[in-house]
């Protein structure tokens, strides 16, 4: 199978043929800021670009408070906040409720409160395990933490990782978003995933005669990916991101 050859002229011509509305790009950015909870950035972006968010920005503050509480290990606090926000969320979502309780247990173990942890596991988590086989398995894994002297080096040690907190936090975040009829994931990362897919397809099926173009395209992409796909929590999100993302995507977005 021979690859299709695309010349520089052809490539640029195609790119120039595609018009993207600035408002659409702004909406995409706003969607990202709102979903990820960068409330200040969203507010500033709204003022600067005139893009209206599809959700009351005040609700973001509440959601972020919950998310932050989980990220800091204050699970009990997070649960109370979610219940104040909307008591239906945890009442109708057993899996999320279990994961929050599990996180609470993990925090107790992390803080060396063995007695309290055991009591909590027995009182609160064991009944959930009886209701659901998967929960029981997860519970057993968590309680196994108590059996090891050096928890950081045990087979289930990853439960104590910060990533476990982040996982739980993003689950709560998603549930609150869903309860507010908002998509639980920002659109941008999936667009980027499709972008990478498209790029791979291009690599597979065509030869771009204009090497430099492709390289610059990759550099931009990597930069963008670093900015918005990174899952590491940033305590104070900066407004920098929205200046970069539209520019980063602009040249290649039409391929999607």
């Amino acid at each position: 199978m021979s690859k299709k050859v695309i010349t520089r002229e052809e490539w640029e011509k195609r790119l120039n043929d595609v018009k993207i509305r600035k408002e659409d790009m702004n909406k995409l950015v706003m969607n990202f800021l709102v979903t990820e909870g960068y409330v200040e950035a969203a507010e500033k972006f709204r003022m600067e670009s005139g893009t209206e968010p599809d959700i009351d920005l005040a609700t973001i503050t509440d959601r972020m408070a919950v998310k932050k509480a989980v990220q800091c290990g204050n699970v009990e606090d997070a649960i109370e906040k979610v219940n104040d926000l909307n008591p239906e969320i945890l009442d109708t979502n057993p899996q999320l409720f279990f994961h929050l309780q599990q996180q609470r247990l993990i925090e107790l173990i992390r803080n060396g409160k063995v007695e309290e942890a055991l009591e909590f596991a027995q009182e609160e988590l064991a009944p959930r395990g009886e209701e659901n086989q998967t929960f029981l398995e997860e519970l057993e894994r968590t309680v196994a933490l108590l059996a090891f002297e050096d928890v950081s080096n045990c087979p289930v040690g990853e439960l104590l990782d910060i990533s476990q907190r982040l996982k739980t936090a993003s689950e709560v975040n998603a549930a609150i978003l869903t309860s507010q009829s908002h998509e639980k994931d920002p659109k941008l990362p999936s667009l980027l995933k499709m972008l990478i897919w498209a790029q791979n397809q291009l690599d597979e099926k065509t030869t771009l005669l204009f090497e430099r173009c492709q390289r610059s395209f990759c550099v931009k992409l990597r930069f963008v990916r670093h900015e918005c796909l990174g899952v590491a929590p940033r305590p104070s999100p900066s407004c920098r991101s929205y200046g970069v993302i539209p520019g980063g995507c602009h040249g290649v977005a039409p391929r999607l």
Partner: protein
Amino acid sequence: MPASAASNRPEDLIGRLSYAESGAKLKALREVKNQIIGNRTKKISYVKLGAVPRIVDILAASEDDAALLIQSAAALGSFACGVDAGVRAVLDSGAYPHLVRLLSNPDPKVVDAGARSLKMIFQSKLAPKYDLLKEKNMEFFLSLLNSENENVTELAASIITHSCETSTEQKALCDAMVLPRLICLLDGSLGQRDASLDSLATILKNNSEAVSKFVSLNNGRALRAVIELTKDRYPRTRLLACVCLIAIGIASPHHMQELEIKTKLIGILIKLLEEPGRAGDEAPFTLAQLIANKEDLQKLAFGVKAVERLCNFLQKAPLTPPAKRFEGILLALAELCSKLESCRSEFLSLQALNIVLTALKHDCAEVRIAACNCIKSISRSVKNLSAGRFTSETIVAPLVQLLYDPVTSVQVAALHAISNIVVDFTNHKLVFIQNGAVKQLVQLSKSMDSKLRLNAVWALRNLAFLADRIRKDSILQELTISTLASLIYDPEPPIQEQSLALVCNLVDGGVDSIEHVFLEDGVIINAVAKQVWRATTTEVCIQGMYVFSNIATGNELHKEAVMHHLLPQAGGFTQSVIIRFLQGTESQLRTAAVWCIINLTYPESPNVLDRVARLRQAGIISQIKNMVNDPCLDVKYRVRTALEQCTFGNCSISLYLLNGVHWFGFSLAIYWETTVLLLSSDALLSRCKLAMNTLVNLREMISFHVSLFFHMLQLVKALR
């Protein structure tokens, strides 16, 4: 802080709910709420400790304290969420009017809290029915539905889903212009959309008038919107859109004629199984409902590999899939396999039967029932039945075990499955007898529960079908003549019918078997006769006549007994019951009656002439002479045979043979037809061939075919 930890004990918290000053009260209330949300066990223990009435007291007493109102409403809502005892406690404590009052509070947060709690209550089956036909109620309801508040509109929609049951209520809602508003809500928030789809399905269910109204709204845009929502990103929305479309399709099929939509619905529902949570749990139930009793849809489902995909879910699932989902998948499989042999063989080839067998021992009664239903459908396969595939110990033992189940509906489901499995041509019936099944079946046939009685007798009837003498004896020994007689006299006609059918099978197959009905001073035959004379249900009469037909195949004494019971007695009725049946509108009853005459006038039996004379005297012969052109083909042919026998009862053997050849051709034709349709049982075929070779006498061959045909008919009736 050990002190505060101790004071968070449920008892202390509840104490503070009643006696603390308002700040501490609010704190305690909030603590209770946070403890019970998401936690079934805590809800139940707080309900037991009497927390609910105290919270209702707070709700009732807090006029303008928004925080207390919100917290108490939220706590009550959580008690009502997912726990029946909680709903009951909330309703019994009189919370309902107080929560309704919150809906007119000026603080939107209070309104939200009240609406959410009421919504939870209305999502439970225990909630009181909201009478939509009362004008005042309807007004209030419409004010809710048209509210700007999201939670209040969702509440209104759940009121519809909970309370709209009759077509009058559906019509009242349509007349109040509820449909356009619901369609508006389809563009609303996620919760509104789902609630709206749910209520639309409720209003359109089985109501073609409502459906045509709905379909014509906005030039059909409403219907298209719902179809569009089957592709929504949220699984629950997809499911509810499917439910709505299915309701439309059932109420007025012509709106859902497009094959494409149906295939898509099946595909969407199967795909939904991949979703964790409620949508995935409920999807197989919806699928089962969609394809129930619809062979065309089952074919479509088979075409998109539904059997394979459902079985895959069962096999891939973790050790124990959630009970609800397990049940749903089994029910969907049961529907798929209920009519199509192709589905059954696919199911068996995928080795899915083993999973169903483990499901028979599941902790959850609903799963056990679903597994029984599945086996019932699979065992409709005559091909596999006659190959003895279902009579292995591994299948029979757990099914028999379920006959002892504490839950009646499980016992009934197990009886259904067993009824099919025991319809067997080979001698596998032994497995049942060895497993003590007969003993328990007999026990159940004496149950106070009429459903159990009915199905136990049905199973016994099928067990006696084509059974050999030893097995029949063992059934009768366990059952006893007197129990059988009392079953024939059962107050429920369906049980009478099955009991007579059981007798029919017991007396079938030779003079020895017929003797059973004459045991203990003929208590059985007397019971049969009594039912035949006085029963008003056609089905009972049909089975009764078949019992007499079978008895009439016996020796002279047997035939005489039949004559005695069916002809009017001196001083009794003036007209034979046979004439009444022959004049009946039900062709099956006419057939049964003519069969009886055929057997009574069977040529070459010593007293045939005398019997023909008596039948003539009773006006029966002239009655069947009027039936030579009966609209029912079956009746018509049998009438001819009967007439030939009555007219040529004493004719030469050659004439008889001629008559026989005619019969032979006819019954053979029916036999082959039935065989092709029903079974390719190796066992039966070889039996048939053997019979052909050894039966030199043409007449015997004829009677063999006739009785074979008769068995076939019974088989068709026996299988459910």
